[in-house]
């Protein structure tokens, strides 16, 4: 029993470490991608004890260190408990959401088969939706606990935006659940391993391209990333619902933004792009379509799968940064109109069409 607890602890620790590192990497992407898109160099003034070489590591650590060492200023008249609680409530669900995302196939080590997924839930998709619903509280509390009219408005607008786009997100996930017939993410990823017509990997995006676009849009709106970042509005509202937070509290809000990027990227890869699947890689090696097989040791296969998962997550994080710096911010009424009058009917129609196709296929 202790061995199992130890294995679960190692898996959880590994996921937490990688997610925090990914958050730092996406923070660095934000600066560098925006810089190169705007034809400038970006942040490169960073050195540790005179050693300016490893720019990536310096820039990843510089932001968090800067915020962590600033003064924690609490404005007058706030409810202190809520002011301290809001960043924690914002931070907790997005970290925990990563527990249901599988990052590899089964690892055979020491006579045990370890499922490379922190918590093997058979309602994994619903668990992630639950954590996304809980992240609304951080915004609401951040706005309320600030004792500031404009923060409150920003908080209420932000949470209204989040609950509107949760619907479109949930319905696009429902279409994927219908296609694969399961709520368990590991089963969904395994089902994307077989080949269509003998050569095309059966990734989710080929079955549900519309659901992919809907989920990408709804995911970016849910996590309040540009072009949907009116509640945060850096150039207009300073920081919206988290104006009155400084120091470590601001760091938690800031990190949550990038961890949410990682969560949306993780979900996109898991449901639509095969998760940890490498094309043509089975448990014992490569099986290319023309009959060419390359046998590989088990540990190398597992390592390849984990690396493939990480690469796909980083790619989708980069894609989200790219979209952020391309599109202008949309107005609040346009945003709500897009959510309720645009994405929701389209995702409903997608679910209906999926149901019709599945029934026709079975007939």
């Amino acid at each position, binding site marked *: 029993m202790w061995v199992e607890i130890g294995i679960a602890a190692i898996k959880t620790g590994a996921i937490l470490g990688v997610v925090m590192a990914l958050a730092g990497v996406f923070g660095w992407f934000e600066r560098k991608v925006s810089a190169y898109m705007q034809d400038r160099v970006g942040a490169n003034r960073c050195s540790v004890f005179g050693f300016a070489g490893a720019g990536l590591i310096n820039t990843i650590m510089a932001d968090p260190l800067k915020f962590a060492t600033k003064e924690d200023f609490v404005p007058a008249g706030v409810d202190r*408990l809520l002011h301290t609680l809001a960043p924690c409530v914002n931070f907790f669900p997005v970290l925990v959401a990563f527990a249901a995302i599988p990052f590899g196939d089964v690892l055979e080590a020491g006579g045990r088969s370890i499922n490379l997924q922190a918590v093997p839930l058979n*309602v994994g998709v619903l668990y992630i939706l*639950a954590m996304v619903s*809980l992240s609304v509280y951080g915004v609401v509390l951040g706005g*309320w606990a600030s004792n500031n009219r404009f923060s409150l408005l920003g908080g209420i607008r932000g*949470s*209204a935006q989040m609950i509107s786009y949760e619907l479109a997100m949930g319905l696009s996930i429902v279409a994927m659940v219908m296609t694969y017939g399961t709520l368990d993410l590991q089963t969904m990823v395994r089902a994307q391993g077989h080949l269509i017509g003998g050569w095309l990997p059966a990734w989710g995006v080929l079955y549900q391209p519309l659901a992919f676009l809907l989920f990408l849009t709804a995911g970016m709106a849910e996590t309040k990333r540009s072009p949907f970042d009116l509640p945060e509005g850096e150039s207009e509202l300073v920081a919206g619902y988290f104006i009155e937070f400084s120091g470590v509290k601001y760091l938690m809000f800031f990190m949550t933004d990038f961890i949410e990027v990682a969560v949306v990227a993780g979900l996109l890869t898991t449901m639509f792009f095969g998760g940890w699947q490498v094309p043509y890689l089975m448990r014992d090696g490569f099986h290319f379509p023309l009959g060419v097989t390359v046998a590989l040791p088990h540990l190398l296969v597992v390592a390849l799968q984990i690396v493939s998962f990480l690469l796909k997550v980083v790619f989708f994080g980069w894609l989200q940064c790219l979209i952020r710096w391309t599109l202008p911010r949309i107005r609040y009424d346009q945003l709500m109109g897009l959510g309720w009058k645009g994405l929701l009917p389209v995702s409903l129609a997608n679910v209906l069409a999926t149901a019709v196709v599945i029934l026709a296929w079975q007939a």
Partner: protein
Amino acid sequence: MHPVLFLILAALLIVSALCVVLQPSPVRSALSLVVTLFLMAVTFLLLDAQLVAALQVVVYAGAIVVLFLFVIMLLNLRDEPRALARLGTQATALVLGSLFLLALIRFLVTPPKLSASASAATGMATPVSADFGSAQVLAERLFTHYLLAFEVTSVLLLVAIIGAVVLAKRKLV
């Protein structure tokens, strides 16, 4: 489920429910309700009800209490000076509440009798099948045996949406 774990959860549940009822600030009451709902979802998970636990967090904690918080914030309700009723009302409520609780407990201490048609191997100690409480089994039960209730509930939700929109709309002067 281990008794010690149950006792810890029970104590936390009772404390958070008391916080809901006794906190003078409405926002803190709502947040205590979120904690209560989350603990309840954990209890459901330990009772092999995985889908219901997930739905509890998504629907109850993630939507209903958010709606409560919205209304509290929109009406800008601060802490009120007279949060509780008069002392006489409080005393009467406490006495009646305790009597009610004692009556409930007296009837609940003996477990319900299993009907003759139920299988002999039921009870908390006997393990359930692997898919008990999963979405597939619940859906099968819901869409065959309880189909009429399901359809009527969807009409009920439609009525509630229309009612809420009509009631909360500002009259155009």
